[in-house]
């Protein structure tokens, strides 16, 4: 008997689900429950961040005009009108919620936790209690961030980049307590990320079902393995930087504070000796790779979904794996492209421009493989497929605009303008959000055992895509006009006056984008109650998560599956014209083994 088949169909005992409600649904160690906890936490912050974005958009279209409906409640001291404090706090929280508490927990936490054990044919993560710990660290971090909205001085107002001295010197902004809470919260989030990343690596290394070689894992699974490298290697850097920042905030050190600071004509009275630029280096050493942490799992999910709904193997599977790895590897040495105008040595600007352009090569291969996958397929335009195709277009748009700001010479002009705002809302925002849509429309039946309404799903995806482009494509034009970001009132500059109409248009489109999400919320919630029960494998997909019931039982599989082939056996030439052959189905004799 070969090692591959030794555990074939193992039914080894697995501890049953705990009986008590608290242990089963709250302090659970089941990766599926934890995945859903991440999902609901992430979606909560998504909606909250979206609401904050609407406030920002109102202010930009109608500066200092009372905010309708919620204005009186939020800004009682100014008759319902936005204040500069309010604007900066809301803008910072929008960014922090979206990046740190929606995209990371949803794409990596929710989909990663839910899918990795199921896709490799395991009963749970390798370290279930560590898994629970990382979720509750995230929860704690999220609660701290929410609490910071209500402390005196307001939430952090330094932008999600929290550059010192603004974030470190007392009284540079009113949000002294908020800044501290932000730092502590993100530090806890960092721990959650590191533990989560370790768990993915250990799980994938040790728990793969018999026959599941590394090159038989779906790309989705590969992406979680690869981004775990970012979680493990880059997160400790930001965590240390935040500890140093905290100690500067507390007045214990001056690591990022130079001597001779004078804040509103009062000398700070610190001995100084530190360097603000040092923080920017540490921050971007984490925050550039983390962009890939946010976008690569989404792209990999999209590649899998394109393959399922084109009924065609993913094109260039191994080249996609290598490209994902290459993007991450190069991604560790490009952080300086955020700092071309920061006072960096110009020779470094040249170097960072070149390595950043190099990322275009593996990214280009990924996009080519996506297009080649749908080419000559047999395309089912489900809501999930539409969202996946939206991701392709959005990622390409953001990637191409990224070629501009990658070049130091062009970045001098577009840096910190709406060009960059547009760019990262495509490449991080849109690509991730539409990946989440694609993933949810695809795996919702597996997660909840019920179907979403396909018709309304398609409407939601198409309308969202149109509104999204109306909002963010227009922002490129503002950026070309030199419109700075993080400006509470564009009308305070004469050269920005011509763009007020653009702001009005963007705001209207943004309200539409926000309103369309209600379709999604209603569909999601209604599906939980009234959705049609889902079969085991509603999309005729080949991977292992579809080899068990929807939703899977506590122990995932009654018998652990044995893997016989790669995950993309769609429309195979052999097998008598069968549409697809699942990974766990044994080969009939006489049929040659697939890769």
């Amino acid at each position, binding site marked *: 008997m070969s090692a591959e088949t030794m555990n074939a169909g193992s039914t080894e005992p697995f501890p049953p689900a705990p009986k008590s409600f608290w242990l089963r649904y709250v302090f659970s160690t089941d990766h599926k429950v934890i995945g859903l906890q991440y999902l609901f936490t992430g979606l909560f912050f998504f909606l909250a961040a979206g609401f904050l974005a609407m406030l920002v958009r109102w202010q930009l279209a109608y500066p200092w005009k009372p905010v309708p409906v919620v204005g009186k409640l939020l800004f009682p001291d100014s008759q319902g009108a936005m204040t500069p404090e309010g604007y900066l706090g809301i803008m910072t929280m929008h960014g922090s919620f979206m990046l740190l508490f929606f995209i990371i927990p949803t794409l990596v936490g929710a989909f990663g936790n839910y899918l990795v054990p199921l896709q490799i044919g395991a009963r749970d993560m390798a370290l279930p209690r560590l898994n629970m710990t990382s979720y509750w660290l995230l929860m704690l971090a999220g609660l701290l961030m929410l609490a910071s909205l209500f402390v005196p001085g307001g939430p952090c107002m330094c932008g999600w980049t929290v550059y010192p001295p603004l974030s470190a*010197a007392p009284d540079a902004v009113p949000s002294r307590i908020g800044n501290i809470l932000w730092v502590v919260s993100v530090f806890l989030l960092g721990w959650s990320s590191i533990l989560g990343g370790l768990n993915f690596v250990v799980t994938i290394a040790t728990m793969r079902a018999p026959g599941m070689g590394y090159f038989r894992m779906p790309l989705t699974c590969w992406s979680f393995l690869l981004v775990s490298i970012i979680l493990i290697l880059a997160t400790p850097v930001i965590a240390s930087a935040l500890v140093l920042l905290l100690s500067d905030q507390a007045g214990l050190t001056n690591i990022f504070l130079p001597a001779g600071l004078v804040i509103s004509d009062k000398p700070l009275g610190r001995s100084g000796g530190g360097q603000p630029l040092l923080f920017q280096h540490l921050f971007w050493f984490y925050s550039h790779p983390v962009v890939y942490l946010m976008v690569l799992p989404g792209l990999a999910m999209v590649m899998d979904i394109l393959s399922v709904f084109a009924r065609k193997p993913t094109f260039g599977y191994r080249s996609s794996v290598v490209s994902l790895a290459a993007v991450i590897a190069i991604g560790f040495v490009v952080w300086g492209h955020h700092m071309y105008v920061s006072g960096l040595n110009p020779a470094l600007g040249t170097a960072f421009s070149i390595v950043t352009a190099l990322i275009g090569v593996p990214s280009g291969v990924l996009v080519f493989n996506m297009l080649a996958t749908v080419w000559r397929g047999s395309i089912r335009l489900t809501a999930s497929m539409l969202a996946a195709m939206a991701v392709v277009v959005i990622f390409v748009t953001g990637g191409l605009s990224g070629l501009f700001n990658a070049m130091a010479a*062009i970045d001098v002009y577009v840096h910190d303008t709406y060009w960059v705002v547009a760019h990262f809302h495509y490449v991080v925002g849109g690509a991730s959000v539409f990946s989440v849509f694609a993933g949810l429309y695809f795996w919702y039946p597996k997660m909840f055992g019920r179907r979403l309404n396909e018709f309304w799903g398609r409407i939601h995806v198409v309308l969202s895509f149109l509104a999204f482009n109306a909002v963010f494509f227009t922002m490129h034009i503002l950026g070309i006009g030199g419109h700075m970001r993080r400006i509470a009132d564009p009308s305070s500059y004469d050269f920005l006056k011509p763009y007020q109409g653009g702001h009005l248009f963007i705001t209207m489109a943004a309200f539409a984008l926000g309103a369309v999400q209600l379709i999604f919320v209603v569909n999601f919630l209604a599906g939980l109650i009234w959705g049609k029960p889902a079969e085991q494998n509603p999309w005729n997909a080949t991977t292992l998560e579809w080899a068990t019931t929807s939703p899977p039982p506590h122990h995932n599989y009654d018998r652990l599956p044995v893997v016989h082939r790669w995950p993309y056996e769609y429309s195979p030439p052999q097998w008598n014209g069968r549409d697809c052959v699942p990974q766990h189905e044994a080969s009939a004799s006489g049929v040659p083994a697939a890769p």
Partner: protein
Amino acid sequence: MDWLFTLMTWVTLPLLAAVVIILLYCIVRYRQRDGHKAAYITGFRTPWGLTVLCGLFLLMELPFDFYQEKIWADARKHRPAKGEAFVVQVFPEQFAWNFRYPGPDGKFGTPDDVASINELHVPVGRPVLTVMRSKDVVHSFFLPHLRVKQDVLPGRTTRAWFEATKTGEFEVGCAELCGLGHYRMRGYLTIEEPKKVVAWLESQRVYGIDESKWGYWTGGTDD
């Protein structure tokens, strides 16, 4: 810089259009219908396919890298010579731009210096060099019409330079979030004939140098 931007736009927009068109074509041409079966294609047949693809992407990018390096070098590496440039010290604070000019003797830190707040006057047709330090937090010195942007940090000197070819009145912006008044941290840039600049500087002399501001300048006097 502008022509590089335009060139890039004309290269990237067709690429984006191509992706959209390919997807739409696939949706129409390869939609699910009776008797139509997807092709079983797992990748390039030879490793050459991938090599050529990567090579194409590289070849597309490299020329731009060379062009951009030339512009970048002019903007950041080739600092104008001391005697040749019109030098201004820039000392921003929350939320104003303080400028100091060396006066007729061409030296800073001498009694004939002239200072101004939020008003920058520079000569046309001569390189201008700004020597910058921040008094408090990070700001960013932004001259949108001249395509100049450089962060200004406390505890570290940064420089920017440019040569204006046209006279006129323009704006100075702050491009790095620096606090509550970031949105209104606006200055005025006047580019005029060298004689007019001298005359304007003399007219500003009456206001003197505000030591409660410039007393904190830590950048030294000769850089």
